[in-house]
């Protein structure tokens, strides 16, 4: 009986949390479409979430592109490798690894930072203070972060795509002795417009998830420093899981036809 009660409690808590998250997301999206817009805050968040994540995303993409080239070369058909390596690196980076790894890296960096900042604002009553100053906390805090992440993640991932392909090119030409011109031609020939746009659509969704999780856990943090720490961890973990789950759903939707 106790086991049923314990399981029931967990299920109820999970459902309640899911409901709270859905409601929070709905409020955020509804404010996303209605003025006033705090452009100064949106600009600041674009800088923090987008620009300052660039080194992390660039390094991740470069090494991933390089490793992918090596793995395909050593694990595949080495006679036809010059074509296969360039093609698979380009497709793998633009369709999957660019957006997913980029999203996960930004989740680790930005989701945590957002949750920690808003969590601290919550426990020090700064969010309550906003309400007393005729400012809607969702509009002032959540919307700029959502907007910034939705718009900057595709840009970051696009830059990551280019750097990732370049990483594969560097390894291919320097380490595997491929011809540079042939490598570029193979990349260009096999890469299609849809491969890039599908990755960028994914990136925009991942951006929404990253900002939403950071804001949700930060907004609902309680219990001082420990609560802020818990919010930060939960933001990164849930953002990462949602990114992987959303990636599966979007891949099946985008490529099923």
């Amino acid at each position: 009986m106790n086991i049923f009660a314990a399981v029931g409690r967990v299920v109820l808590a999970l459902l309640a949390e899911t409901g709270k998250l859905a409601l929070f997301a709905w409020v955020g999206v509804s404010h996303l479409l209605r003025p006033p817009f705090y452009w100064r805050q949106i600009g600041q968040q674009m800088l923090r979430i987008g620009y300052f994540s660039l080194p992390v995303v660039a390094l991740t993409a470069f090494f991933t592109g390089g490793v992918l080239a090596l793995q395909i070369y050593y694990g595949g058909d080495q006679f036809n490798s010059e074509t296969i390596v360039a093609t698979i690196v380009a497709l793998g980076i633009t369709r999957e690894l660019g957006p997913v790894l980029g999203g996960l890296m930004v989740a680790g960096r930005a989701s945590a930072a957002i949750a920690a900042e808003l969590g601290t604002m919550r426990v020090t009553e700064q969010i309550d203070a906003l309400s007393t100053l005729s400012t809607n906390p969702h509009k002032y805090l959540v919307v700029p972060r959502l907007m910034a992440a939705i718009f900057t993640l595709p840009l970051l991932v696009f830059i990551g795509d280019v750097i990732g392909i370049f990483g594969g090119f560097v390894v291919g030409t320097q380490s595997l002795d491929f011809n540079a011109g042939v490598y570029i031609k193979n990349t260009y020939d096999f890469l299609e417009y849809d491969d890039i746009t599908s990755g960028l659509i994914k990136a925009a969704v991942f951006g929404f998830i990253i900002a939403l999780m950071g804001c949700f856990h930060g907004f609902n943090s309680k219990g001082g420093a420990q609560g802020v720490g818990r919010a930060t961890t939960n933001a990164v973990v849930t953002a990462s899981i949602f990114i992987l789950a959303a990636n599966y759903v979007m891949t099946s939707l985008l490529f099923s036809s």
Partner: protein
Amino acid sequence: MEEAKLKLTDVHKRFGSKVVLNGIDLAVPKGKSVVVIGGSGTGKSVMLKSVLGIVKPDSGAIEVDGEDMLRVPAKRKEELLKKFGMLFQGGALFDSLPVWENVGFGLIQGQNMRRKEAKEIAIDTLAKVGMGAEVGELYPAELSGGMQKRVGLARAIATEPEIIFFDEPTTGLDPIMADVINDLIIERVQDLGATTLSITHDMASARKIADYIAMIYKGEIIWYGKKEDVDHSGNEYVDQFIHGRAEGPIQMEILKP
């Protein structure tokens, strides 16, 4: 009977099974200062947050100039909330903004005032709480506790609200700084002709800034009267509290066997 600027009638609020407000009845006369005294966990902060819409009461009425804030349309409620200013216990200053922007926040975001104009008013308001223009360029983390309280007071009065809430205005300050804050509160409130509602357990502060004192206990107002009458209230709860005695009808949980 004086005209009530703010009136709470039979306000109830519970969190789960814990009853926090158990039928609060309190009227704050126009232009007067009411101080609510009471121990920790008796519902003081929840009462203020209920008025400000940060916490939603389960039932009851909260009237401002005769309009029930719990029943007016959302737009009207936003208008009514513009009549309020609040000094938070911990200051609740926005640590990402310089002091002048904290003080001018309600003007910039709430009233869409130009930043330059808001800065001038913020500097003037800082002068009214005894702070120079150079403090305006500092960040809250660079200020002492007393200075943060004064900045919080400046922020609360910058928009010239009709009703000001003070949440533990002297907590955490040395007696001299506490008296300075009390004097500033009296002076600035008189300047504005505002109505004030304060919560505190500092009796020296209550005696100094109050016109009327109310005592809250277990979510109910158990005594209300002029501050001159507090020493002969005939209420044993009030007597125990104002004299700070461990023995009496108010039993701390920790003292129970």
